[in-house]
């Protein structure tokens, strides 16, 4: 029986370690992991791996330092090292003074790339030393070994991957990057089959028949209870028409047009209408923003700083292509690397990237404050509907105009959750109300992330310090920092206080 090739994978990211485990373990490699440079050196000395996959940036050391330490030790000097990083320029620099580095692997990587580069590393080493362990089982070695390797041994970056450098972490950080391409799992697709895959036409909504939904609906009749109207109904859940992620995306990206997420027209039409102007704005806003500060899902920055506007343009082109395919009835795309991807997945991916771009634009201040959603005061009003100050508070909020305001008039137990979600800058509280509200305010005080919250008590205009319902000591205890009398100009008073508080903050 063949002895397994021992691979030492060094990476501090649990996602990458999991990905490597899932890629390598089934293909006949014995994988051992280290999470730091020190641990890697120790394991290399005692475990004698056939090859080391070394992340360039580790918590305690840089990759070139680890390489140097391994090279200086006779026990580990001959172990070939594959440097893994998203920072191509840095690892090239590291390679110049590290002779034990034989290959490079650029994040994000595909399973095929990982296996190929390990084979290349072990073969190169066995050619020079003739002492390395035998190759892994044949089923793992069926891929061509030169796909991404240049004559000089450096990994040639796929041009498409430059775009992927700003790809945000996938929703499922473990599954998405490690899914092996179809080409790595099955024999090459014959031309008729390939055509069938590409031209596979759904019965209805092309994008909605995403993989996720096609396997998701489970209809346990008699178990599933679905709410209909305001009551439970034992009618089993019927699969609803599924909206494309485009639609979800458009809603999330346009706060003022959130209804887009819930429209019922054909999603592709909505997407085209919404994404075009949006991406154009993004492109314009991101011209001066560069990608180098943006993490890839592998946890490191992009190799080169690229203007965000280019990303937006490329993303726009990608979305347009996906939409065109969707409109033509395709459900899947056969990609250059031989893998097949559903349009739904592509759209979700694009959605995440748009969100990331939007975030960058907001962080860089290149989008209007309204798009960022953070500039306006967020005011949460806690006041019973029957309170004497309720009408005045409502009027004040209405007159204030530029506040994001929400009101809680009953069920005060919701206050902590609502505060946590809404993140108000100010809390306007009916100050004469008793324990029901104050109990929740005490809970709020215990939450670390709500400590900056300014709580303003509002009392009727005729209340004074002698009013027995106005317990200032208690108000102070629950965190109320200011009490305002609800007069006719309550809106002006509140605006003034809130404005000065924000200015002070």
């Amino acid at each position, binding site marked *: 029986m063949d002895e397994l090739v021992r691979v030492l994978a060094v990476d501090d990211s649990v996602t990458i370690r999991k990905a490597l485990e899932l890629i390598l373990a089934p293909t006949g490699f014995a994988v051992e992991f280290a999470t730091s440079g020190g641990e890697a050196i120790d394991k290399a000395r005692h475990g004698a791996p056939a090859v080391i996959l070394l992340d360039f940036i580790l918590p305690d050391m840089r990759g070139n330092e680890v390489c140097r330490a391994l090279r200086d030790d006779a026990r580990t000097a001959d172990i070939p090292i594959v440097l893994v990083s998203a920072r191509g320029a840095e690892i090239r620099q590291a390679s110049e003074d590290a002779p034990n580095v034989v290959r490079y692997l650029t994040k994000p990587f595909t399973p095929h790339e990982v296996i190929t580069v390990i084979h290349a590393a072990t073969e190169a080493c066995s050619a020079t030393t003739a002492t390395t362990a035998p190759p892994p089982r044949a089923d793992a070695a069926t891929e061509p070994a030169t796909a991404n390797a240049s004559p000089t041994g450096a990994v040639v970056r796929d041009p498409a991957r430059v775009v992927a450098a700003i790809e945000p972490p996938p*929703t499922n950080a473990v599954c998405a990057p490690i899914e092996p391409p179809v080409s790595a799992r099955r024999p090459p697709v014959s031309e008729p089959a390939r055509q069938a895959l590409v031209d596979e036409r759904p019965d209805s909504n092309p994008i909605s028949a995403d993989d996720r939904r096609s396997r998701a609906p489970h209809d346990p009749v008699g178990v599933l*209870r679905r709410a209909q109207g305001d009551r439970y109904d034992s009618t089993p859940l019927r699969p609803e028409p599924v*909206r494309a992620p485009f639609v979800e995306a458009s809603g999330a990206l346009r706060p003022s047009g959130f209804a887009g997420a819930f429209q019922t027209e054909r999603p592709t039409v909505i997407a085209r209408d919404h994404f075009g102007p949006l991406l154009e704005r993004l492109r314009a806003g991101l011209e001066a923003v560069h990608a180098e500060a943006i993490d890839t899902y592998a946890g490191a920055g992009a190799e080169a700083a690229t203007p965000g506007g280019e990303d937006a343009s490329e993303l726009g082109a990608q979305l347009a292509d996906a939409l065109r395919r969707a409109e033509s009835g395709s459900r899947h795309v056969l990609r250059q690397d031989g893998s097949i991807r559903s349009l739904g997945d592509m759209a979700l991916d694009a959605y995440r990237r748009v969100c990331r771009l939007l975030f960058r634009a907001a962080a860089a201040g290149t989008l209007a404050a309204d798009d960022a959603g953070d500039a306006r005061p967020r005011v949460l009003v806690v006041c019973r509907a029957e309170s004497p100050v309720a009408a005045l508070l409502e009027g004040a909020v209405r007159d204030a105009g530029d506040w994001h305001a*929400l009101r809680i008039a009953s069920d005060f137990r919701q206050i902590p*959750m609502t505060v946590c979600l809404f993140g108000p800058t100010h809390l306007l509280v009916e100050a004469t109300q008793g324990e029901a509200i104050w109990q929740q305010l005490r809970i709020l005080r215990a939450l670390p992330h709500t400590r900056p919250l300014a709580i303003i008590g509002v009392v009727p205009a005729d209340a004074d310090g002698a009013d027995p319902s106005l317990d200032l000591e208690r108000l102070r205890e629950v965190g109320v920092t200011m009490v305002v009398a609800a007069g006719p100009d309550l809106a002006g008073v509140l605006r003034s206080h809130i404005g000065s508080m924000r200015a002070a903050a």
Partner: protein
Amino acid sequence: MRLMNGGGPERGAKVLVVSVDDALFACHLDWVEAAYAGAQPPIHLVRMGSDRARPFVPHGQEAAAVVDLRELLGLREALGPARRAGYLLVRSGAALLALPIDACVGVRELDLSQPAPVPTRLRREGGVPLGHMVELDGHVLTVLDPARLLDDGLRDALAPLQEKAQAFQDRQARIEQLWQEIRREPNAEQVRVFARLCSRSGRGRTAGAARQVLLHMDEDADSPPDHAGDAVDRLVGELLRRARSRSSGTLRVDLADGGGGEIVLAAGRVVDARCGASRGRDAFTRLLGAPHRGARFEERIEWAGSDRIAESTVALTIAALESLPSGARAL
């Protein structure tokens, strides 16, 4: 609490509105897989780390990790654990989540063209809000974005759950299959595997009962038990020895309180039992659990009565031992 649909044409999309800690949350129906009342779904635990167990709800071929909104919002420590009335199963990316809820308020046709929603301040990876909040009919409604419910840390933490839960469900299916086989025509290997799987699935009582029966199944059929067990164990041993030798007759049991009972076997299978006024399985279980002074077997060639018990003696004994209090069945 009611959320009234506004008048006019229905232009929005349907969301399911649920209540948690008096706060209202909405989820687009496309992402809702199911809503379970609290007592309906079986809740299982899988050990996720060295000392943490994560509950999950089996749903079809998948496992939905139970994640309370208090946990998602970072309020677990401040508010503590909650007892909820049901579960809302929503898909969040590749994960299926079971959100404990207090109530299912209803389905609402939500048209957000008029009330402007505010993105939540709580954001997820990429700065995307967890949802949007809107005030409707005097209530604050948070429309959750299911794909953004989990932060990266929790998503990573939940990643092994599906695999572990799948293993658990596979074990359950295997246990059920083995049980059916044990009920029909048992052998020692089946019972051994059954006991092991039950033990690994947290069914310690069943595993203990199966192992107790297994002790007697492994004995030589012709020799009396060589271990000194308690009265229950001796009775089980005698019963299984008769079952192995395919005896027909009546095992008369003298109870410590002066009463008695009998277990009728036909070709090694228990077909009936009597203890006081009870008959059948109930009587069998009572005979095994009651203190008794001894038992004697009277052979009989034929059994003319009707069979009240149709399963194998081994399965019957395992089920009876499992239902006994732990003190009564201990070896």
